[in-house]
């Protein structure tokens, strides 16, 4: 059967799988819906990995799950899959199991009294779904956007202690702190035009009843128009998720990345343009991790081809340099030491270099790398600095 599945991730780490399946009854056109909650996305990932389903479908489903966690969007990504009943059941995406749960809930007398008449009949299931869903939902009616329905998740999202202070009130009365913010205008526009509005990472200042102060938050949300039997807009459904933590984390990450990029640029400039040889070597293996052109010349290597090679395996070898590296590997800083290389200059004289080597300790204090800077000195200065 062809089914559609979508996933959403809740702030308390759960994964909700929504599926739309064709009706079992050929006379009924309306699809069946299923909602399954997993304690963590990895629980579902394991199920999907082990399921005997086509590879391509598996990848589609896994990608949808991972993206729903890492890059959530509204409306949700719906993935069309062609799977057997058994396969859907093995993924716990079958409607039957959920219907069973709902039937059990319907037997609960306490719940029966709370259901508004607007949700009588089959819509009761939808009402229960919205009330229990960890995703915040609100339904408003009329041009004044009167709040007809609000689920506990939305009450929490807007910082209220209960629904009684907002339920049944127009939005401007229920959430007066939104004055001067874009939300009233957006709701008016959606009601007037019938065009949904999706807001991503929009800042809102909301009154927290618990803390008694206005708090700055960020939300992803959708304002979706609801239409009556004649097709006219009669209200707006709102689905929202708080993404404050994500916005703050990304701002911090961006700032760190900018700093890292600046440092990288600085280092790059030194390697490329400094009039000295620069080389970074791994301690122990003496593998060349990085080397600039001047250093390549010093080592008698074609430009930049020495990277990845081991110093002791180069041709020509530079024993004096190797010896200095060994000393530096033991923790000694080599300062202003002149050595001859195996490279011969224009006058058939050995070229000489003034070498400085600094051992670089890693996080645990062990010397992981050696950083060497070399400057060519004239051949006719045998006692230069030594």
């Amino acid at each position, binding site marked *: 059967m062809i089914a559609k599945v979508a996933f959403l991730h809740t702030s308390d780490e759960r994964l909700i799988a929504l599926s739309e399946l064709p009706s079992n009854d050929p006379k009924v056109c309306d699809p069946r819906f299923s909602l399954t909650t997993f304690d963590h*996305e*990895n629980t579902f*990932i*394991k199920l999907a*990995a*082990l399921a005997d389903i086509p*590879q391509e479908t*598996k*990848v589609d489903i*896994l*990608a949808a*799950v*991972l*993206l729903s*966690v*890492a*890059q959530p969007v509204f409306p949700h990504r719906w993935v069309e899959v062609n799977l057997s009943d058994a396969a859907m059941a093995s993924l716990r995406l079958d409607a039957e199991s959920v219907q069973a749960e709902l039937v059990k809930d319907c037997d609960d007398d306490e719940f029966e009294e709370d259901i508004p008449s607007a949700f009588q009949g089959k819509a009761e299931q939808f009402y229960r779904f919205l009330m229990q869903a960890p995703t915040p939902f609100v339904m408003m009616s009329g041009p004044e956007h009167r709040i007809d329905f609000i689920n506990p998740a939305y009450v929490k999202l807007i910082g209220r202690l209960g629904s009684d202070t907002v339920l049944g009130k127009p939005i401007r009365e229920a959430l007066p702190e939104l004055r001067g913010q874009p939300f009233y205008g957006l709701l008016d526009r959606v009601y007037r035009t019938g065009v949904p509005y999706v807001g991503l990472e929009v800042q809102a200042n909301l009154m927290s009843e618990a803390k008694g102060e206005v708090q700055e938050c960020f939300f992803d949300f959708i304002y979706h128009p609801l239409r009556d039997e004649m097709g006219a807009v009669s209200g707006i459904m709102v689905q929202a998720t708080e993404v404050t933590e*994500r916005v703050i*984390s990304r701002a911090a*990450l961006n700032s760190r*990345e900018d700093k890292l990029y600046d440092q*990288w640029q600085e280092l*790059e400039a030194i*390697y490329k343009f400094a009039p000295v040889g620069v080389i*970074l070597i791994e301690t122990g293996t003496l593998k060349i*991790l*990085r080397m600039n052109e001047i250093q390549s010349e010093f080592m008698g290597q074609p430009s930049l081809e020495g*990277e*990845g090679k081991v110093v002791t395996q180069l041709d020509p070898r530079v024993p004096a340099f190797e010896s200095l590296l060994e000393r530096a590997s033991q923790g000694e800083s080599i300062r202003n030491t002149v050595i001859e290389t195996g490279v011969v200059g224009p006058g058939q004289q050995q070229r000489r270099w003034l070498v400085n080597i600094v051992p670089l300790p890693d996080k645990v204090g062990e010397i992981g790398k050696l950083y060497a800077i070399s400057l060519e000195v004239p051949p006719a200065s045998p006692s230069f600095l030594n």
Partner: protein
Amino acid sequence: MSDVAAVSVLRKFGGIEEIEATLLELLRRFGVKPDLTTTKTLHESGTTVLLVTVAPGDFSKVLGNEGRTARSLRVLTRTLGTRIGLHVELELAVESQVSRL
């Protein structure tokens, strides 16, 4: 598992290559550049290590928020490994800027 049984399992579920292909396709969908992604399979005392190296700019996509995506990919790799009777661990690495410059 006998050799015959192992071959049968591999035929049915694919080998380490299928795990590799699954991961690479998932990474591609996360916007990770396929031409800058390399994989390598290593065998270490009963464990098959799948080393996936991505470009420095793509590493944050693979890690996800607080490493969540990476953890899920590791869980996925291990689970796919059990289907073919292998203990497979995923190692994620960033292509060294040092070697690229």
